[in-house]
């Protein structure tokens, strides 16, 4: 057990825990943040994606030790932002949401991509989303959503 502190969705959190616990379990079990999902438990599907210092990571493969003193944003935190509104509306308009299990992770991936590259090409979008598996959409409409998001949200990233 160790004393741990990091920034979670704009708040500093402090608690005692094992350093080798998975960030995903801490978020879901200790903070009841169930937006990040467990799809595979080994960093393959991206359903558990969160932002660590504004970059996408799979929280199922992130030990708690790695986030000490860092900033973690989950979909619950990100959904309070204007960027989220733009991305969410784009997903809705294009039809990028189906069963929804991959959607929070896909939105986190979109944010992480646009944060680094506000005007990605189709190819760059596909690379940016390739760590997130979706079994419903075939990705086509999600790629369209990302394109709509950066056009509508011009200047936000």
């Amino acid at each position, binding site marked *: 057990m160790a004393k741990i502190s990091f920034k979670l969705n704009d708040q500093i959190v402090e608690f005692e825990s094992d350093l080798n616990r998975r960030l995903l379990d801490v978020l879901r079990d200790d903070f009841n943040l169930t937006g990040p999902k467990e799809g595979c438990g080994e960093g393959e*599907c991206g359903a558990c994606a969160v932002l660590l210092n504004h970059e996408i990571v799979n929280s199922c493969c992130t030990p708690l030790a790695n986030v000490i003193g860092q900033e973690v944003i989950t979909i619950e935190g990100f959904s309070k932002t204007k960027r989220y509104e733009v991305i969410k509306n784009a997903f809705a308009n294009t039809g990028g949401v189906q069963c929804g299990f991959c959607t929070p992770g896909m939105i986190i991936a979109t944010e992480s991509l646009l944060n680094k590259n506000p005007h990605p090409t189709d190819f760059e979008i596909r690379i940016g989303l390739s760590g997130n598996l979706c*079994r419903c959409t075939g990705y086509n409409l999600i790629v369209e959503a990302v394109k709509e998001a950066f056009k509508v949200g011009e200047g936000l990233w």
Partner: protein
Amino acid sequence: MSNWCNQLLKEVICLKDISKSINRVDNDEKASGQAKYVADIKYEGMLYAITVRSSIVKGEIINIKYPNLPEGYYVVDYKDIPGKNIVKVIFSDMPVFTEKTISYLYEPIALLVGPDKEVLNKLLKQVSIDYKEDEGVFDWVDSVIHYSFDKGDGKKAFSNKRIIEYTYETSYQEQAYIETQGFVGYPEEEKTTLIGSIQCPYYVKNAVIQALGETEDNVRVIQATVGGAFGGKEEFPSLIGCQLAVAVKKIKKPIQLVYEREEDMLVTTKRHPAKIKFKAAIKDDRIYALGVFAGIDGGATIGLSGVVLSRALIACTGVYTIDHLDVSGDVFKTNTVPNGAFRGFGAPQMFFAIEMFVEHVALALGKDVLEFKKAHLAKQNDFTSTMGIFRDPILIPEMIEKAMEKSLYLEKRKEYDKPNSYKGIGMSIFFHGCGFTGSGEKNVIKAKVRLKKDGDLVYILVAAVEMGQGIKTGFRKLVSHMLDIDIERVIFNNPDTDFVPDSGPTVASRTMMIVGGIIARATKEVKNRWQENTFVVEKEYEQPDYIEYDEETFKGDAYPAYSWGVNIVEVEVDKYSYQVNIKNAWSVYDVGKAIDEKIVTGQADGGLAQGLGYGYLEVMDHRVGKIRQKNMTDYIIPTAMDMCPMKTYLFDNPYAFGPYGAKGVGELSLIGGAPAVAMAIEQAIKRRVHKIPVTPEYIMELIKNGEN
């Protein structure tokens, strides 16, 4: 605005084409992470369950030794089942917990239940089981279901004709829903309640009633938000629903049973591997008669396998009319994980095989493939394989034209034919029979639908499940459109068997066409009684008079309606690594009438991606009964990098009994992907493909030894 103007505006809105897209009603809760899937649901004092499984493929349990359980931990096994130790499905031959006999690896024996998952995992490792081990059967020799039928002159039609024969093979496919299987169960006084990731609330409820030996009132099943299903959550949840219900009944506490990915991949039902042999008798450069011999691997239990086989056999001629048929098929029992429902339900196997076969026959005869296929296309009023009738117009010729025009098929086909192009373009043509086979809807399912008007609101009360396919939006849009009211005034909550009637399972591309059709009839009555404040309308399925089908002889109209499709897929194959790169895909569909174009496009893209994956990417196999792919790293499903831009075009062709003419959508779009990509690869490598998935290893083998 003047009244007149208002009235006019209203009429314009009324006449608005229903296909025009709206945004889905569940976008916000899903995007924001607020939607509650099974694993997100927690109760005070909730326990967890993990499954004790066999470590052999075949044999008998001699003795089980459980470790000493700490306080608050339990074993739940067959001895705790108050009712029947059998899971009620279409063919009930699977125990809830095996008592003695083991027929596949990782067969469920018991649940360990307790408050701490880590402790449970430790306890699981300490369970020791003695077996009397037998040798497993993996060859397809033990036929447990055999079907056969003929058409026209049957076997006689083959004498004195030129015969062409080829065999095709398809392998496993895993549904790979991103949310694994799971339930949360809890007691409510006398009642046992389950919340699950399920397609069929009443399948689970009826199975639990039988396993618990309970009355209907004492079992309640509620659908959680479902994170993908694709058939994988049709019958399998009945097994684990029963197991969990037995545990809840015994322990009387809330319990969660959620599979980890590895467990899900190793033990849940998959698409049946198939081997299909065709024999064509040729007369006047046409296929005069077709012999079909199909085998599918059912795995250790039969379950739905017979229905999968029958749906495959009914589709044996593909979209072509062939007057003389000799058809037979078997379900083989092997000591492997039971196979079951997966989007397409037998059709993806058969359409891959028949599309390749007709092409290979054309090549053997030295004919142009497209012209050969066109010459055999089924037309309106032709007899189906089962001597039913294609009653509605068939738009396939126009759909082929459209797909070719958009993809520049003919030009590309010609260009890629050049030696060493390593590029190819392929076209598949297919249909899907909508709804249950034959009289299944009337005799077995007997769907009921209820609408409740309460003041300004209308409640849709059905057991249909939103699993990503968009039915929540579709049904609310349908009712609001018919009543000409705002969609916010139409309520459709996740089904809860305490409140909704049994409108049947969410399967078989039946939900919009069949359940939606009943909803539309009920909505008409609501509209006529609109002045009344509060009332309930209940309607049942009415089968069109003309449908008659004999399941024994495979004679009659197997389906009330058919949806149709054309896929064109363009690929490039790497000269050195033989990696297949999908460049583009075009689809044309006749789904009667799209209730929402955007939702249908989503189904079209997603189904095609699964069909393409089935055709070239998704490898699953077993070694002596053990599935070798146990996670998303071993079992590769398409990523955004593997997929390509997809274009979809819809043709209206309304079906009289579907709401606004709608037919089935969900399964159709998976069926054409595999044959289209296989044909494109054939052109790229100038070799004939006889099995899927067409992996680089298979391509290498074909380039060395394959037929040109």
